[in-house]
């Protein structure tokens, strides 16, 4: 079995060849669902052309960046492009102090775009009637959700670089935002008439406690207390404990040490109550107290309510090390993941990515994401942001550009395979200092130009970046197309844009050829109104002037016409091949009743005629048909007659 392939602008064509074998061959089918996330997915197959053999050969079209074509992701690409450009532009103006705040805002903007896209995708999934489409959308929603989860964590740890204290608060927010599996349950209990009697009541209280939502937990507990007078005392104590729990503050009202001290006291108080058996009669409350004490087993019991190991991690940190430092996270993270998964299941790609983040291994995060995700959008933008945070300086890849640039180039190249999103790609290439320009030059020439407006947009991009080669090349393509469609004015317009003298000459020759064949000019509106563009090429100038000659003749301004005609030959504006025609045009002027050409001019004309005929060899003269020789003879005669008349006229005294 052998494979042959051919590279296209955005795709690779692959087919099997059966060198030396007869008969059919089973074709390889598309990658199964599990491979949907690979960058180079086999996207489809086209039945191969028949070559007479009974075998069925198939042609595969391998296209990377399939995601570019997902309709609902377009918003993501467009909006993030705007944010990206804003970030690059604001780079110059950023002051050190507000820099971090600005970068955090940018990060939040990216995340809100991801969420908006998720929302749209979700709506689309619900509205879709085709089950395959629906499942595709749902998959996309979960991928986007995972992306947002990872980005959010990176924002907390890397962009904001939250310090011990606020770090925990941010992580709590993070968990609350992303663990939505329990939302339904919470809603159900809260909206029921008698929440405390609901079978899931204690689950919801536990959820609140696990997520550090103390106020909500206390509120629910109060309902229980009022319904159950016997446990009022227990409730009061627990409520008090929950109320007094010290949490890190975002403002500078207390230092870390102060907080730690307070926390230590509080912890001991909880311990006392537990050991006194205060909560012994109510297992639920007892377990809550244990959770407050950070008892690992107690927290692990609520595995179902936490659903993920990182929730477990944050809860544990909240109740055992609220002042955790960023660099300490890795130890807790690894331990928590091992405990939570407990050897039953192995970590998935999302888990490894998050773990890498907790370990502050940025490059690992990016690498894992590149592998797991099916397009470059996420890693390109995240890496760019991290680069702006000046966190990625050290690594340089072997071929000169750094990781940020590499990812941006890959992402933008993917955009260029799309018939419309390529415009976004241009700006990305602009911000890749090493290879951006080269990539742009290569890609921009391959955009299909099906309308003039599209060609104009591409041209504008090239001109703004001084890509003269590409301008010339594109204008030539458009001019050639116009010429083939007999749109001479359009063709001229394109040559003017490119300042392409050679093409202008080509167009003028075409006009002149038409004139010679038909005896009149086509497209007079163009030739009569050439204006300064006439100077673009000699041939074009000649065309314009020649037409002017005809106009002057038509308006009976003979002496001006005569002067112009002569000038066309003597100034060598006219091509030699046309001189005969010009001289023939002079004939009627020579034959006029009134003498038009002066002696000087007549001599010039004669000289031109001689130059023309002298240039021909004897053999050519022999081949000239009668018409040619007769024309020359007539001209000679007319010139001689004119000369005679003009000598007499000029020799005569004017006046009286």
């Amino acid at each position: 079995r052998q494979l042959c392939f051919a590279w296209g602008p955005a795709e690779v064509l692959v087919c099997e060849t059966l060198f030396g074998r007869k008969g059919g061959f089973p074709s390889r089918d598309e990658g199964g669902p599990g491979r949907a996330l690979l960058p180079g997915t086999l996207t489809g197959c086209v039945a191969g052309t028949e070559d007479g053999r009974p075998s069925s050969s198939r042609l595969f079209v391998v296209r990377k960046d399939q995601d570019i074509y997902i309709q609902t992701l377009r918003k993501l690409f467009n909006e993030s492009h705007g944010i990206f450009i804003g970030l690059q532009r604001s780079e110059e103006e950023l002051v050190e102090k507000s820099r971090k705040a600005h970068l955090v805002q940018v990060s939040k903007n990216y995340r809100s775009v991801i969420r908006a896209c998720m929302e749209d995708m979700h709506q689309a999934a619900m509205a879709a009637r085709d089950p395959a489409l629906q499942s595709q959308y749902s998959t996309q929603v979960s991928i986007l959700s995972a992306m947002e989860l990872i980005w959010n964590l990176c924002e907390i740890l890397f962009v904001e670089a939250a310090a011990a204290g606020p770090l925990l608060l941010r992580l709590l927010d993070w968990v609350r935002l992303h663990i939505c599996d329990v939302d339904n349950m919470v809603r159900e209990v809260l909206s029921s008439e008698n929440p405390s009697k609901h079978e899931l009541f204690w689950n919801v209280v536990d959820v609140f406690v696990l997520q550090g939502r103390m106020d909500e937990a206390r509120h629910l507990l109060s309902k229980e207390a009022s319904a159950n007078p016997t446990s009022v005392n227990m409730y009061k104590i627990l409520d008090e404990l929950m109320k007094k729990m010290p949490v890190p503050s975002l403002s500078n009202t207390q230092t870390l040490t102060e907080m730690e001290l307070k926390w230590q006291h509080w912890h001991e108080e909880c311990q006392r109550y537990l050991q006194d058996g205060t909560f012994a009669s109510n297992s639920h409350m007892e377990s809550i107290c244990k959770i407050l004490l950070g008892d690992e087993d107690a927290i692990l019991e609520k595995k179902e309510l936490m659903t993920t190991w990182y929730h477990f991690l944050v809860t544990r940190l909240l109740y055992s090390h609220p002042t955790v430092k960023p660099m300490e996270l890795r130890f807790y993270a690894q331990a928590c993941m091992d405990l939570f998964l407990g050897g039953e299941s192995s970590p998935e790609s999302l888990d490894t990515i998050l773990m890498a983040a907790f370990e502050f291994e940025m490059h690992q995060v990016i690498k894992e994401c590149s592998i797991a995700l099916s397009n470059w959008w996420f890693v390109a933008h995240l890496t760019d942001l991290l680069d702006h945070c000046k966190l990625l300086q050290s690594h340089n890849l072997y071929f000169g550009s750094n990781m940020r640039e590499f990812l941006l180039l890959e992402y933008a190249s993917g955009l260029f395979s799309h018939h419309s999103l390529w415009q976004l790609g241009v700006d990305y290439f602009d911000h890749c200092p090493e290879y951006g320009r080269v990539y742009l030059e290569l890609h921009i020439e391959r955009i299909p130009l099906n309308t003039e407006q599209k060609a104009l947009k591409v041209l504008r991009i090239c001109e703004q970046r001084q890509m003269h080669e590409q301008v010339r090349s594109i204008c030539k393509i458009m001019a050639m197309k116009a010429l083939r469609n007999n749109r001479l004015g359009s063709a001229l317009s394109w040559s003017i844009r490119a300042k392409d003298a050679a093409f202008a000459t080509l167009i003028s020759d075409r006009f002149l050829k038409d004139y010679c064949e038909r005896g009149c000019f086509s497209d007079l509106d163009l030739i009569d109104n050439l204006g300064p563009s006439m100077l673009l090429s000699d041939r074009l100038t000649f065309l314009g002037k020649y037409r002017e000659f005809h106009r002057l003749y038509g308006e009976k301004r003979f002496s001006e016409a005569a002067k112009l005609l002569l000038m066309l030959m003597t100034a060598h504006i006219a091509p030699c091949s046309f001189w005969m025609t010009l001289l023939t045009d002079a004939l009627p002027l020579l034959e006029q009743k009134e003498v038009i050409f002066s002696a000087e001019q007549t001599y010039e004309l004669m000289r031109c005629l001689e130059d023309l005929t002298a240039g021909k060899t004897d053999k050519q003269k022999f081949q000239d048909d009668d018409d040619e020789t007769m024309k020359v003879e007539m001209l000679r005669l007319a010139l001689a007659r004119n000369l005679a008349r003009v000598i007499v006229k000029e020799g005569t005294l004017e006046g009286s």
Partner: protein
Amino acid sequence: QDNRISIWSVGDLGNVSLNGEYQGEPQLLCDIRHNGDVMDMQFLDQERIVVASSTGTVTVFRHHQNNQTLSANQRWEKAHYHVDQYTSCGGAACTGVICNNPEIVTVGEDGRINLFKADHKDAVRTIDNADSSTLHAVTFLRATEILTVNSIGQLKIWDLRQQRNEPSQIFSLTGDRVPLHCVDRHPNKQHIVATGGQDGMLSIWDIRQGTMPVSLLNAHEAEMWEVHFHPSNPDHLFTCSEDGSLWHWDTSTDISEKPSFLHQAGNSTTYFSHNTINQSEISAWLSNDPTKDRMEITNLIPNQTLSVNSLDVLGPCLVYGTDAEAIYVNRHLFA
């Protein structure tokens, strides 16, 4: 490619918030697939929209308001095409359409002008090879006359009553024959015409006199795609461009400086000074010198990125669309 014609509704019609500022996002009411790029479109009447396609087809869509759907009502295939089907290189896009119910005029890359009538199967009139270059835009000058602009910088008037296939008048730019991309006529004063060029220049023409523009205003840094006079406030003009900006030109300043007005009116002076003039008759657009505190020009887009391809304005509403696949609506233009 999946191109669609869509109808959106903007803002809650019954729900005005306290300060009247907040507007909800535009809601998509209905859409329909369209073959080829949408090059231009215009409402024919309350329900019908005429759309020009890059395939050279002109389609009339009907918007059914009772059940919020769109349907294709009528189609003229190959309204624009290149002559020789066998040697032709690709199709010819229909670049501009203008309506004056029931008449529809279209122009295209093939230099052809078509006059259609709604509900009539064939074209009423076709002028083949009306122009040797691409016709970029068309608008009505009077009920029987149209204005076209082309890619060699010419503005032409065509009289549709006449049978000959020649323009009745040709105007061109001075200097370089920069392609003209858009044209609009002053709503009240039919002799004032504005055009936008490939170099972003705004030209104002007085078509009663001369063959050259009255004023040339250096505006955008790239192609000006559309120019529109405000239909009810014609002292206001709007232009949008490939460079991503949308400019609002405002000449509604107090015209109390009477004497200076006549001095500055350039080549219009010779014309006007011979008549007793009512000050309010002279339009500020024909003044040659916009820098003398006569015109206020504002860029309505704060963070420009990609091209603004199209705009439209009616009453206090301005709507425009960009290459970043976004539509913007401003409902308080003169606030």
